């Protein structure tokens, strides 16, 4: 079932964090979030810590999924860029490498043009990182994926999870 399982190591995380921390500065953004297409939060940067990031990730993925469905109806492959304008904050959402969603939250200190420009470059860098992750996942699954933490768990481990 988990044929496209996403496995992220610390070095991957650091690379991703490096890209989005730079993007926060370059784009004058309030907050940046990297979300897996299935709704899992991968990384965040900026001054918006403390908000409900789990919900943000799930809803962003739902939004991308819904507009992806709309795109197919009108004969497009995807709508990879979304922009939501608010009274105070704005949301710029980009689908990177068909797999990862880059969410940029910005206010009047920045502009849509600047965000778009900077996201383009950062998106390409993120795509490279996730390409490497994908390649490694494929190699691991071809070789049995033996280093996964779950390869050694026992039934007792699973039972213990529910005995709390």
């Amino acid at each position: 079932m988990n044929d496209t399982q996403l496995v992220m190591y610390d070095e991957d995380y650091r690379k991703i964090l490096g890209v989005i921390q730079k993007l926060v500065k370059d784009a004058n953004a309030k907050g940046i979030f990297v979300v897996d297409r299935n709704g899992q939060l991968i990384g965040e940067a900026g001054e918006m810590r403390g908000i409900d990031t789990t919900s943000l990730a799930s809803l962003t993925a739902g939004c991308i999924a819904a507009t992806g469905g709309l795109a197919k109806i009108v004969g497009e492959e995807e709508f990879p860029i979304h922009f939501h304008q608010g009274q105070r904050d704005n949301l710029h959402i980009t689908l990177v490498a068909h797999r990862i969603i880059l969410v940029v939250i910005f206010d009047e200190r920045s502009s849509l043009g600047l965000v778009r420009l900077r996201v383009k470059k950062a998106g390409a860098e993120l795509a490279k990182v996730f390409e490497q992750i994908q390649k490694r996942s494929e190699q691991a699954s071809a070789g049995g994926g033996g280093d996964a933490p779950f390869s050694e768990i026992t039934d007792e481990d699973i039972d213990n999870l529910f005995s709390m």
Partner: protein
Amino acid sequence: MSFINYSSREINCKIVYYGPGLCGKTTNLQFIYNKTNPDLKGKMISLATETERTLFFDFLPLALGQIRGFKTRFHLYTVPGQVFYDASRKLILKGVDGVVFVADSQIERMEANLESLDNLKLNLAEQGYELEKTPYIIQYNKRDLPNAAPLDEIRKLLNPNGMPDFEACATVGTGVFETLKAVARAVLSDLKQMSK
């Protein structure tokens, strides 16, 4: 599709509650939400119509505890059960790690159960998944109603392959956590098998 994060030492899995309209998918999640320790759960999101029918999905993030030093997190989703929301159901099934099929025990809903089960198989197949190979639990909900069909009849109809199943009354919580534990266990066992 599970997400294993070595950096934060977390494992995230996605579980989808499927079933015909008004079978009690959202009620299952609401009961879990109400009875779970606040430290272990996130906010429950319901994208519903004004009449509280699920429009897109319900979402409930749960943390179950640690396994081999990894925090295990389960993201529970429901699909909209009404027949015409099929496009949304397909989207929500993407990347699923485990499925709970919530059946409505009332005799007059048997056809709706069968239709929804066929729809589940079809939508999984579209993504290259087979229900038989997916961590999968059946819950017979609304067992308390006077018009509930006999258990062996529902089993024969909806569970001919003898998958793990539970009787439930989601409004008062009977069988809700048993179902959740069973699907979580099935997902983790599947992860274990896959990583061998």
